[in-house]
């Protein structure tokens, strides 16, 4: 019996050891597979740092952002998400080697949320050095359970890798029975053509645009969405089509027939696609197709949309048709089989171009056909007012005009797009008009308002009434303070501070002096409410008047003559300068700035009082309340020199502006990297 037990134990041990050995082997195999994939993908991975322009409240603001991308060609093409690179004014890609290379947008496609960038290889230290790149794999071969790796820079934590499995290689998001599209910014829609790869490799903000990789190190998707433990990647085979179009045309060209579809499973049909919508003025409408028709075949191919997952494939098929192509559509209406010919039209951009017109203080957008359809505008005439900047001419229009209104006419001229709109205002300026009439549509109403062409600069808020001033601070000599100082029974004021560089300082006043008489009149302050008595006495005098102040110092009375000077100018009275390009305001250093900040009398520079959020200075991190002392190594001594040096900087259009600042006791540098091209594009600027 004992022998049997020992044998069983030995068997169990042998079996366990076999299991351990097998697990260890699997782990080793996985480790090797990951190493292989990592070796393939890591060199091609980039961390993308962008500064993007956003339109908000009638102005352009800049925001910094980060995402991931993959180098996909030896020529330096980088694949990423549209929502990462959208409206970027500056893009810098950092390779896993640490090399940083600036990049430009080649083209983008909001419908699939993809962008293709091009690295500025000529700006590399060694442009001849070969560039690593990754290969795009076949996403159609992915199956549930396949291991996949998400690689990227989640939360800006560079070069991170997470492992998961494919949860569903053909995920379609639905709203009711329709394909759900997503707005990843700027009002564009993503998802109509996408059958997503759903996986559980952890992705977080910052992974966007990064690769989803198979264990062969091939890019099988672009990570685009994540949440609740799942990631969703745009499949590589769709990516390939988009990239090819962008590299060929600089844009994605799609065919359009003007129909939306639903699956036919609920109609108890095996094949076909139920026509849900027919857009007005579309090829489908022209061909007489109606909602309720069941499309059977298109251009000779069976319309196979029994399930919703098949609908994006049909949309992609139509999108792949070149504009102008004539295609046969076969369909069923009320049991009758019909056939019509349609001419494929080009698919219009969903979102129109948006621009800031700085001199008018507004942002406007061209109206596309899809926008007009969505907003139910009668047509695409005019420009959409998307934002009005406070305090600028449009904001002061009477009656008021606001974001969401469509501007139809300016100064009697019909507006077709932004270019026409800007040109009309420029023409009115050239004719020295003071204001123009603007006709606009708000909901169903057509309204007229008047807009001034120039805005008066804000008025100076006025300086402080000059008053006579003795350059000292004091405290009341209360009985207890007097007793503590051994001066029982004394009344008056004790000097707590003598301001440097003042006439009081020059006259020999010292901290600790007791002021006991003012021009022969005894000072009787002894209670807190007497604190203002000395100031009242001084302010009742005339600036420049000489007074005699009796002080008690070391037990001895001294009479000091001092000329009353003008009270120091307040910050509100200081000269200011606003730089509209970098969007910050400075003012001259006042006497009290020097005192409060413990600055030297001859401290040069200007005080940064305001840095507009989203402006170039803000993006660079120019600190408010710092003292700006030099720009591009040119000293800034005061407001006048700030203006002069700033003008030189703007004229030179240097790519990086080096700003020397002091904050507290520390000096530092801030590097502003503006986008001069956008400023050049401000078409309604005053000449």
């Amino acid at each position: 019996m004992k022998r049997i037990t020992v044998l069983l134990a030995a068997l169990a041990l042998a079996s366990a050891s076999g299991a351990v050995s097998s697990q260890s082997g699997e782990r080793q195999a996985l480790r090797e597979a990951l190493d292989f994939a990592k070796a393939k993908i890591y060199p091609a991975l980039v961390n993308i740092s962008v500064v993007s322009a956003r339109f908000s409240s009638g102005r352009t603001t800049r925001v910094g952002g980060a995402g991931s991308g993959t180098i996909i060609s030896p020529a330096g093409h980088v694949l990423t998400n549209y929502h990462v690179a959208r409206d970027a004014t500056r893009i810098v890609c950092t390779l896993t080697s640490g090399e940083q290379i600036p990049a430009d947008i080649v083209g983008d496609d909001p419908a699939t949320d993809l962008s293709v960038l091009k690295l500025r290889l000529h700006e590399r230290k060694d442009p001849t050095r070969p560039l690593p790149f990754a290969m795009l794999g076949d996403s159609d071969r992915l199956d549930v359970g396949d291991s996949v790796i998400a690689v990227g820079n989640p939360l800006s934590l560079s070069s991170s890798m997470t492992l998961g499995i494919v949860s569903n290689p053909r995920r379609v998001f639905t709203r009711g029975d329709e394909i759900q599209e997503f707005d990843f910014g700027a009002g564009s829609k993503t998802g109509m053509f996408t059958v997503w790869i759903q996986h559980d490799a952890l992705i977080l903000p910052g992974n966007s645009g990064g690769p989803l990789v198979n264990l062969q190190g091939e890019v099988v998707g672009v990570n685009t969405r994540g949440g609740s433990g799942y990631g969703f990647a745009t499949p590589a085979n769709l990516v390939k089509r988009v990239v090819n179009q962008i590299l060929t045309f600089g844009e994605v060209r799609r065919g359009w027939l003007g129909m939306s579809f639903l699956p036919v499973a609920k109609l108890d049909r095996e094949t076909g696609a139920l026509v849900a919508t027919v857009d007005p003025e579309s090829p489908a409408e022209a061909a007489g197709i109606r909602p309720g028709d069941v499309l059977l075949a298109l251009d000779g191919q069976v319309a196979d949309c029994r399930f919703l997952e098949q609908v994006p494939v049909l949309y992609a098929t139509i999108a792949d048709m070149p504009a102008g192509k004539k295609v046969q559509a076969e369909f069923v209406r009320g049991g009758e089989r019909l056939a019509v010919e349609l001419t494929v039209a080009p698919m219009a951009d969903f979102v129109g171009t948006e621009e800031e017109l700085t001199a008018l203080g507004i942002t406007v957008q061209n109206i596309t056909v899809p926008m007009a359809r969505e907003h139910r505008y009668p047509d695409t005439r005019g420009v959409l007012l998307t934002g009005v900047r406070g305090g600028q001419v449009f904001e002061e229009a009477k009656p008021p005009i606001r974001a969401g209104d469509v501007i139809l006419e300016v100064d009697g001229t019909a507006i077709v797009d932004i270019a026409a709109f800007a040109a009309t205002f420029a023409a009115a300026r050239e004719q020295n008009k003071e204001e123009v009439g603007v006709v606009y549509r708000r909901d169903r109403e057509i309204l007229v308002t008047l807009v001034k062409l120039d805005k008066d600069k804000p008025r100076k808020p006025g300086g402080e009434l000059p008053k006579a001033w003795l350059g000292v601070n004091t405290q009341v000599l209360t009985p207890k303070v007097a007793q503590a100082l051994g001066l029982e029974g004394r009344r008056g004021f004790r000097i707590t501070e003598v301001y440097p560089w003042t006439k009081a300082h020059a006259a020999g006043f010292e901290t600790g002096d007791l002021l006991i008489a003012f021009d022969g009149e005894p000072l009787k302050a002894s209670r807190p409410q007497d604190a203002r008595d000395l100031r009242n006495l001084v302010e009742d005098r005339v600036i420049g008047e000489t007074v005699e102040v009796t002080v008690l110092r070391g037990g001895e009375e001294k009479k000091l003559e001092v000329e009353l000077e003008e009270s120091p100018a307040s910050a509100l009275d200081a000269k200011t300068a606003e730089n509209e390009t970098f969007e910050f305001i400075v003012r001259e250093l006042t006497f009290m700035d020097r005192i409060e900040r413990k600055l030297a009398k001859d401290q040069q520079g200007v005080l940064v009082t305001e840095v507009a959020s989203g402006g170039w200075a803000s993006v660079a991190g120019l600190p408010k309340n710092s003292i700006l002392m030099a720009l591009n190594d040119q000293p800034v001594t005061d407001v006048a020199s700030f203006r002069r040096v700033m003008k030189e900087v703007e004229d030179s259009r240097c790519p990086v502006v080096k700003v020397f600042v002091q904050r507290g006791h520390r000096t530092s540098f801030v590097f502003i990297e503006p986008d001069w091209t956008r400023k050049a594009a401000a078409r309604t600027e005053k000449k």
Partner: protein
Amino acid sequence: MHALRRAFGAAALCLAALPAALPAADEVGKRAEGIVTARSAAIVTIEVVLDYKRGERSGEVKVNTRGVIVADTGLILAPLEVLSPRMGQGPQPELKLQAIRVVVESDEKEWEAFVVLKDTLRGLTFLQLKDFKPADRKLQWVDFTKAAKAQTGEQLVTVLRLAKGYDYAPHFSVNRIVGEITKPRAAQLVDAAGPVGLPVFRLDGQLVGCHGVLASELAGDSSRHAVVFPADDLVNPIKQAREKAAEGEQKTE
């Protein structure tokens, strides 16, 4: 019965005293009316246009107030608060002065005006009609060098104007001096707050000073009281403001 007779007697006395008091009230009204007639042309209506910015929100705010012309050159004394009105609770927005418009009496013309000086000590500001030439329009003004002292208990008349919607109708209010204060600075306490900056007159029509507010400067005491600043206190500031106004408007750069 005797008591009842006594009560009747007292009531009869009261009734007999009433007709004597009523003419006194009429007298105040009559005198105030005379002051309105004589002085209301110096009281102007002011509209201040400010741009505000609070975080990402911005817009325009218009504030209406009244002021008094204090020199024939078009110098106006007005409340300082109109340039930085308190807007709601919490952190205050950043304000930029865009325009000041002044209507003299109920003229059609709106004068542009600019800020000459601010007297934060008294909560007053001096405005100047822009491009004003005395030949353009004869202005009635209040001369602060010609003033009298009012006694505690004395009634004072303030001349005011309603806004545009009421065609700038002039009217008056009556206050009474109820005390003298010396701290934080000398002023006369009045029984109710009046419009800061507007002049106050004795019933004989003599100028006393202007309405103001004094705040305690002691820590922990945030009390404020309506006062009248003596006209003498304002003579020098008006002189300074007049000189400064002659230099013209300081534009922002």
